[in-house]
C-alpha cells in the first residue's frame, strides 16, 4: 500500500531557475532542484553525515554534498561516490499554478 499523499509547498517555481536548488523545511526536510526546467526533490540530509544538500553543488543531475563531496543523482537518489554508500530518497514534485508541491507521502 502506498502512503497517502502528503503535499508540502516548495514555493514558487519562478524563483527557482534552472541550475538552482532550495531547501524545504518540511518533516523530513527536502531539497528541490531545477535541472534544465525539470523539478526534482530528494532528502535534504546527506546519507553520509547529516549535511544539508541544499547547500551543496548541483551540476547536471548530480548533487554534491558540501561537507565531504559525496555525490547523489537527484533523479534516482542513488549514492554515486564515496563517502556516501546509502541512497537518499526521492519525492515527486509537481507544479500547480506556478507553485511547487512535493509529495512527502510518495517517497521512492
Amino acid at each position, binding site marked *: 500500500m502506498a502512503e497517502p499523499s502528503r503535499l508540502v509547498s516548495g514555493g514558487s517555481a519562478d524563483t527557482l531557475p534552472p541550475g538552482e536548488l532550495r531547501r524545504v523545511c518540511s518533516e523530513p526536510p527536502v531539497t528541490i532542484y531545477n535541472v534544465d526546467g525539470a523539478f526534482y526533490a530528494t532528502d535534504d540530509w546527506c546519507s553520509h553525515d547529516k*549535511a544539508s544538500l541544499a547547500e*551543496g553543488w548541483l551540476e547536471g543531475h548530480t548533487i554534491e554534498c558540501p561537507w565531504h563531496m559525496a555525490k547523489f543523482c537527484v533523479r534516482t537518489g542513488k549514492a554515486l561516490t564515496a563517502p556516501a554508500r546509502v541512497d537518499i530518497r526521492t519525492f515527486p514534485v509537481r507544479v500547480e499554478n506556478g507553485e511547487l508541491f512535493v509529495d512527502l507521502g510518495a517517497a521512492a
Partner: protein
Amino acid sequence: MPAVMDDRIVILGAGQAGARLAEALRDGGHTGPVTLVGAEAHPPYERPQLSKEMLLDPGASLTPIKPVAGWGMAGIRLLTGMAATGVDAASRSVTLADGQVLRWDRLVFATGTRPRRLPLLEAGPVPVLYLRTVEDALDLRRRLRPGLRLAVLGGGVIGLEVAAAAMKQGCSVDLVEAAPRLLSRAVPPLVAGRLSARHALAGVGLHVGRQAVGMADGGVILDDGRVLPADLVLIGIGVEPCIDLALPLGIADADGIRVDAQGRTAQPGIFAIGDVASQWSRWHGRWSRVETWANAQNQALATAASLLGRDQPHADAPWFWSDQYDLTLQACGDATTGEMVVRGDPQGAFATIHLVDGHINGATSINAPGDMAALRRLVTARAAIAADQLADPGFHLRRAVAALPKS
C-alpha cells in the same frame, strides 16, 4: 586505442588512490589485467574516519571502499597483506614478498606515506603511538579512557582531531605544536585562533612554539624544561613518502614522486598518485605532495583517464576538511598568503578568502559548507572578484561560479 585498453596495469598501494584508480580503469572500459597490491592486511578502506568516528564509537568498524566481493566482480585482482619488494623498469616487472613476479605494461605508484617518527621518544617509559592505519586507530581507541593523560605532539589535522576525540572520551589532553600557532601551513591566524579557542574551551592544554625533546618517567620533556605529565603520547608531526621502490628508478626524491597533471612520472609507463605524488601547485607556486582524501580520489580519476588514453588533467585546487567538536573546517588552495577577506561572523559560521593580485588563490571556512562548495570552484579557477563583493554576505558565490568562463 586497443593496445592501451589491453595493457597489464599493476598498482602498488591499495589505499584510497590505488583503489579508486583500479575502479576507474574498469569503469572506463579497460579490458586488460588490473592488479592492486596492498601491504595492509585489509581490502581498501576509508581513512578519514580513523581520526574521527573510529576513536569515539566502540562499534565503529572499517568502512571498505568497495564490498570485498566487488573487487573480484569488477575483474580486479586484489592482493592484500602483500608487500612489493622490487621494481625493474627494463623488464617491466614487480617482485612481491612471496617471490611472485608481476609483469606490467604500465605501473602506478600509490604507495602513500608513513608517519614521521621520533625514535628518541619511542625509547622512553611512556607508550608512543602514531596514527595511519586502522590497527593504529583501534589501538588508540582501546587506550582512550576517562582520566587518561594524553600528550599529542603536533598541531596539524591529525593531532587536533585526536585531541578532540580524546576530550570526548574523558581524557585530559595536552597538545604541543612547534610552530607559533596551530595548522600554520594550512590556515590563516584568524582560523587557527578560532580552533585554538575551541580546543581551550574543551579543556585541551595548548603549548604552541614548543617541542618535545625527550621522555621522562611519567611525562614528556619540553624544550623549555617543563615536563608534561602523560600516560600516553600520540605523535602527529607529519609524514614521509613511501619511495623505497621508486628511488632506484630515478623518479623520486625525499619530497615524493614528481608527476604531471596526468600522473606521469619521468619514466615512460610509470605513474604516481595520491599522497606519494608530488604535484605542481599553481596556488602555492611550488611542488608539493597533496595529502588529502580529495586528492587521492580526484587525482586517481584523472590518472585513470590518462591511462585510458584520454586527456583529463588533474586541475582541482587542493582541498581538505577536518571535523573537531562542533566545528567543520575546510581549506582550499593557499589560505596563508595574500589579502584576506572575511565573509560571515568569525565567532560563528564564516569563510576567509585569500586574494593574490586580485585573484582568489585560497579559502577556508568554519561551518560554512555552502560557501566552500562555491569557493572551491572559484579557487580552482583563480577567479578575479573584488574583495568588497566577496565580503558581502548578499553577494551570491554560486552565481559567481556560474558566470565563470567555461574551460
